[in-house]
């Protein structure tokens, strides 16, 4: 909490001295990380609030994409720092995309099977195992 207050105060001080405008004109890797954080939060909100199971799947794709963005950012950071195997983050991203594709295929197959049996795609109607 103290750190948060301090960083907020520092941000305000920066904006007073015009450093914020500098950050707006020259975005650095931190801005990409903030975009990733926003995408992840929106995805989590979608998973927790929506009833339609297909939209929940799409929110999961958003979360995975935020993770991909973070991996690419850190890969770029390592490239700038001159690391030997700096594209490892991009390789990891390829595997995340593969797993996301497999997950979407299996999950949508389950959705179709569920819709045939229960005639609903709303997650709060699927409560057969709920006691």
């Amino acid at each position: 909490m103290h750190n948060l207050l301090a960083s907020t105060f520092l941000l305000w001080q920066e904006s007073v001295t015009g450093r914020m405008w500098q950050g707006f004109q020259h975005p650095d890797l931190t801005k990409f990380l903030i975009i990733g954080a926003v995408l992840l939060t929106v995805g989590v909100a979608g998973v927790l609030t929506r009833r339609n199971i297909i939209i929940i799947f799409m929110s999961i794709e958003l979360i995975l994409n935020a993770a991909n963005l973070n991996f690419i950012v850190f890969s770029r950071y390592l490239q700038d720092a001159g690391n030997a195997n700096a594209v490892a983050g991009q390789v990891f991203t390829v595997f995340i995309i593969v797993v996301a594709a497999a997950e979407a295929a299996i999950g949508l197959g389950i959705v179709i099977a569920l819709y045939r049996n229960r005639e609903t795609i709303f997650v709060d109607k699927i409560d057969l195992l709920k006691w």
Partner: protein
Amino acid sequence: MILSGWESFFFWVFAFSAVIAALLTVMASNAVHSALFLISTLVSVAALFVLLGAEFIAGVQVLVYVGGVMVLFLFVIMLVNVGTEERGGGEELYNRPAQVGASLFFCVLLFVGLISAVNLSSAHFRAQPTTPGQSIEQMSAEQALVRETEQGMVASATGTSKISSDTERVGASLYRYGGLPFEIASVLLLVAIVGSVLLARTAKQEAAADDLAPETRAELSGDEALGIK
């Protein structure tokens, strides 16, 4: 890496379009609209990948996500959502209000935590000078732009232009360090194909596939057991 000039302009354009389309994905009432907004988010994130110098991943993102996964999503929405629309659209979009409130509170906490973590580590990203002894403020915008784009690029075969070597490096790294995970990923995709075919077929298709017990098949081919859609 610090962007400048047109790169920073495109960064803000694609960042805002990604965030706004992500919000609309979660809030859209129609699932088809939701899928289309998700496509626009994915394309914007692919553009951010290009700005970060990961052209190969951007291409894979557009081809696999937008061309493959999202088409699958749209097919399933078409198969499943028609019935719910016809039954009268008075259905609630969201969970109960208390649940939604608690979830949003959790999301706000999550976001504040993530932002403070980014703030704590931001000094590392900002303090890194691109060349020793010369900071970004001392360079003119054009110089910085040219230097950033020249970085990590090699001359093409004809020598008239420069091309990115990102794909080459990703491929080399994939086969040098990630051979076993690559094979495991291929087996995973095979299992996913077989599993989704098994999960999604109808009872009639199962009966036709000749892998049912004879009594079950007799029961299915009886009077109205095929009433399952």
